[in-house]
Structure formats: structure tokens, C-alpha cells
């Protein structure tokens, strides 16, 4: 966690929350990722690294999410989205 706070010195003291809790249209800054090696590597290569801003495009019910980051759109399962900790952008 020290590395992440070094990356984001100016983030407000707001609590980190799972990406899956953001509604469509909201944005969050990635704080931490958890998950298996394979999933982490895949997510890192798709641009999920600390400090990146992620916009939630679609988040309905218990289905998968669509998020936008680094100029692309990514579909991800709800379980995967729960493993991405973000700070909500105000």
C-alpha cells in the first residue's frame, strides 16, 4: 500500500471502494488490485495499473460491467470488478 500512496499523494482521504460499487457515469482512480497471478497480469496489460482513471460505462444488476480506461472499453465480470479498489473521483 505504501507504493500506491506514493503514486497518489494528492488524492483526497476518501475511502477506497470496489469498482463494482460505482454507477454508470462515475469515475474512479485505481488504488489496488487483488486476484490470482494470471488475472492480475491480464489486467495489468490491459492498463489496470495504480493511478489510472477508470470510467464506468455500464453497471446493471448482477451482470458484468463495461468500463473505459486508457482510450479502450473493457468488459469485466462483477467478481473481477470487486477486486479492483478505486477512489471515487469527485
Amino acid at each position, binding site marked *: 500500500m505504501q507504493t500506491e500512496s506514493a503514486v497518489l499523494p494528492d488524492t483526497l482521504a476518501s475511502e477506497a471502494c470496489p469498482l463494482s460499487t460505482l454507477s454508470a457515469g462515475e469515475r474512479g482512480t485505481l488504488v489496488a488490485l487483488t486476484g490470482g497471478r494470471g488475472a492480475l497480469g491480464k489486467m495489468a496489460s490491459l492498463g489496470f495499473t495504480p493511478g489510472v482513471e477508470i470510467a464506468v460505462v455500464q453497471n446493471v444488476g448482477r451482470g458484468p460491467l463495461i468500463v473505459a480506461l486508457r482510450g479502450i*472499453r473493457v*468488459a469485466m465480470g462483477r467478481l473481477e470488478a470487486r477486486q479492483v479498489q478505486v477512489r471515487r473521483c469527485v
Partner: protein
Amino acid sequence: MMSHCASDTQTAAALSAAIAEHSPMVALAGQPNVGKSTLFNILTGLNQHVGNWPGKTIERKEGVYAFGGATCRLADLPGTYSLTANSMEEVIAREFIIREQPDVVVVVVDAAALERSLYLVAELIALPTRMIVALNMMDVAEQEGYHIEPDALQAALGVPVVPLVATKNVGVRELLQAIHQVARDEIPYAPKPPQIRDDHRAVLNQITTRIAEWTPAPYPRAWVALKLLEGDQEITRMMQAALPADQWEVIYAILRAHDDALMAVAGGRYEWIGRMIRAAVTRPRAGQIGLTERLDRWAAHPLWGIALLAGILGLIFWLTFAIGTPLQNWLNASVIAVLAQAASAGLAGAPAWLSSLVVNGLIGGVGSVLAFLPIMVIFFATMGALEDIGYMARAAYVMDSFMHLMGLHGKSFLPLFLGFGCNVPAVMGARVIESRRARLLTILVTPLIPCTARMAVVAFLAPAFFGGAATLVSWGLVVLSLATLVGVGVVTNRVVFQGQRSAFIMEMPLYHRPNWRTIGVLVWQRIMAFFKKAGTIILAFTLGVWALSTLPTGQLDSSWLADLGRLIEPVGRLMGFDWRLTVALLSSFPAKENSIATLGVLFGAGKEGGLANVLAATIPPSTALAFLAVQLLFIPCMATVATIRQETGSWRWTLFNMAMQLVVSLTAGVVVYHLARLIGG
């Protein structure tokens, strides 16, 4: 057409062999959805060879092209997001580059998604092999509001950058020129690879020094150290084997203390990418709502998206049967029947068995496969177009929740979708799924999707038995198949795989106009693969069935096939089948549509129209319904079984699949038969 293709690939193979020694080797790398296949097809035409990577079920495409008087070999590497061992594709791509040391690696990059695309460049540029960046989809980038300066990117990267619109053949000549020059060392090459972030530099140096004398050739030392830090499993295993135990303990302790390094390395690459983009992109994307976003409001909507998918599937079915079936009938009546007549006339003087072998065995068997050509072309062309415009990722997305029922995720829907055409490419299509468990489960349930061959049997028999209610019955049977698929999937996942789950994360590419050339090549390759597999297997089995139905007396009634049918008739009796229906069911094993031909022979009806009347008069509706249900769910056809064996690499799973479908289909048959009798059959 077949001989033409065969000679093409032979020429390519001969040519490759002849020039293998001294002609340059170019490797084509790139992430998925960047137009790599389009570029490969433009460069090689049909002058390409498709096979598998040794020991892997991943497609390996190679070809040759000529430029400036020299012939070059071109290897199409699997599409990969990175070079870390997250998937088989990634291992194959990097092993090829490191071990085969191609003269030039061309990295295809999507200009409209530059940030994500440059990630693979950030990995490749750290390897000693020379590279060129092919900046593809410049037109889409302009439409999306980006403006990119290729020269500025080239200066920032220190490697040649060639702007490209592969779909319109723009920039391809310049790319070939650049390859030519880089291969001959004619232009300066001074790559500026990303550096690891400061907080991990010391530990990286420490590892690099410690592994120095143990790193196996030809792996670059610094690269191996970086992969160790990233936690790459393959490289970790390799170095554990290469280092003495005490040395490895030290390294392992260092790695354990830095198990967060993956994010630092990936983050460092993205910081580097950020610098490249600031140098090269002069106008960032405007905030306008693009076409993709507008289309996805419908296509990816949890409700409308599924309605759209059902509509598309219905449309494909309609196209396939409205255009394909009449063409198939025409081929059967005008080409194959004429051929059979000519053959029997020509063989009039020959022994009866020879005439029967050629007419019934050879032309009847192989002909039925050939007649499937129109249906296959229509199905694969529409599927290929959907794939090419970027719709398939949306289909996977909207089906994700549904697929969770079986412990699978959205990506597993894509091969199932393909299965409605033919189960053989569908089983092969399961290659898109990363996790072995999910791939295996998908392969096991795929044959429960009713393919066009089985639907053709239903389309012929349902009207004969049920007249006006045929459409309703057909839909009911499809629903029964799909419900069985879900049931089998849920149970197999719970019992065999104990409910493990794999991660679902997938890029949703931008929509773009279909490229007919790419689709054409795709259709061509899928059809040739189908012909090579199904043609040989169906030919062999048709001859076998022909022999069984003719020997030893020449009469069907007293043949070994009839004996076999009578032997297992008691099983068929449970569903009201007599030996003829039982044999017709068995004959669907070599090819599903054989059932109709077998019924025709066994019920002694000369013409198909006649057969329909004879069947309607002799078989009660309850038996007919049970027969259709079993026909749809029965053991997969021979070609599918062979493909399952090839793709799973295991006889155990192949036999499991056959046994499972045997039990499921017979159970369904018995239940349907007795329910139908209860209700009033």
C-alpha cells in the same frame, strides 16, 4: 477448388523449404483486434500455410511474400496483449521471438487505441530483435478525433514507425520497404526502451547480477530478471531449474519481498507509453460520443442486447435455410444425382458390388458432404462478418450472466454460437478461452448445440410427422437441446470441476466496417479445414457403413447392419423404435444427415417425398418425437469426436463426452416417448 488450394500450399511449402536457408524471416506481432490478420492476408494472399504450433492447439500461420527481388518468410504470431506467461499464446509469441530470432519483428499497433496497443511495443522493444511499428487504422483514429504524428512517434521510440490503413492497402509498400531496410541494416536503429521505476531499479539490478552466469542462452539476462520480478511462472520455473538450489533460495527471497513488483513494472511501462503519446499525439481525442458508444447502448444493453442477439441468430438461421437449403437440394438433385446416374451407367458391366460401392458408398457419402457447402459458406460468412465488425465481444458480454449458470463466462458463448453451424469449428473455436478448465467444459457441452446437419434432419422429418405443427415442434426441440446443454453444463461443472471459475476480462473493440477480404480468407480456411477433416472421416465411415449394410448377402434385411440393429433393438423399444429406426440413429454417427438416407433405404422409399409419406403412415407421433429428440442429442458425429480428441488431447474426455451424450439422449428419448403417449400420442 480443393486441388487448387492443395497446389497452393504445396508451392508455399516447397518455396519455404527452398529459401529457408537464406531468406529473411519476418514475424508479425500485435494485440488482438489491431488488424494483424488483415495485414497478413494482404502480404501473403492465399500463399499461406495454416497449421498448429508444435504440441499446442493454437493456430500457426506462415506464408511467403516477395519484395525488391527477395522472398521473405512471414510468421503470424498469436495475438497477445503482453509477453508475460498469462496464456499459451503469449508464451508461443515470445518463445518464437527469443529462440527463432526473426530478422525483423513487425508490431501492428491500433492507432485508435494507441495507449493500450503500445503496451506490447513496450515489452518487445526490450528484446534484442529489431522491430518496426506498423501504425494501423490511421483512418479510424482520425474519425475518432485523434491526430498522430508518425515521425514524432518514431523519434520518441527510436525505431521505424510506418502509418498504415491495412484494410485499404494504404502504406503497405512503405512497410515492406522499411522491413527491407531494417533487415539489411540500412537505417539507424536506436531503441529507447522503458526503464523500471526508481523504487524497483536497485532490486532489478541485484537480480540481473545474481542470475548473470546461470541464464540459459539465448534468453537476454535483463529481460529474464524483469520477468522474474513480474512473477512470470514459466521464467520462474526455468530459472529455478537453471540455478543451484542455494542461489535460487536467495533470489526467491528477494522476489518474495517484492511480490508487488508486477504493478511497478506494468506501471513503469504505462508511464513510458504516456511519454510516447505526449510526443506523438498532437490532438487528443475530443469528448464526442463515438459510433461505438451509440451502438453499444443497444448491443450491450442487458435486455435489448439479448433481444438483438436472438434476432441476429434467427436471421442467420433464416438466411442459412432460406438460401442454403434450396441450393443444397439443387446440388443433391442436379449434381450428385446426375453423377450417380452417370457412374451406374458407366459401371453397368462391372460387378454389382463395385457399382454399389461407387454409387451408394462413394458418391452418396462424399456427395452429402459436398451438398453442405452452401449452408457452410452462408453460416461462416455471416459469423465471420459479425466477428470482423467487432460484434462478437458484445454477444459474449450480454451472454455472460447466462453462462455463469454453468460456471463459464461470456467468452464460452462464442464457440457455442459457431456450433449452430457446425460443431467441428465450434470445438476448435473454444481455443479463445484462456483457462483450460473452462475450455474443456465448453468443448464438452458444444456438441449439444443442434448443428445445421441435425437441423436438416429435423427440417425434413418434422413436417412429415407433424404437418402444420412442424415449426412449433422444431422450436421445442431446439429449446430441449439448449435446456439439456445448460443442465449438463451445470452438473458437469459442479461434479467434475467442483465449481471453479475463471476470470472474465475482455476488450470491447471499436466497431468498424467489415473487411471482405479478411472474411473471405476466414471462410475459405474454415471450409477447407472442414473438408479435410470431415471429408476423410466421412468417406471412411460411409464405406464402412456401406460394407456393413451390404455384407454378407448383398441384401440389407440380412446384412450385418440389420443384425446389429436387431441386437440392440430392445434399447430402441424403450422409445418405441423398431430396428430400422435404431439403425437410422446409429447411422448418424458418421454424419448426422445420414439418418434420412438410411431411413430411405430401410423403409424402401425411392424418393424423399415418398419417404415422408411412408414414415407418416407407419410411425406413431410419440415415437417420431422421441426419435427427433434422440437424434438431436445423440453421440456427436465422427468428425466432431475426432476434433474433441484433438482439442482436448485426451481420449478420456472424448469418451466421457460420448458416454454422457449417449445416456442423456436415451434418457431424453424415453421421457419424451412416454410423456407424448400420456398426452395422447
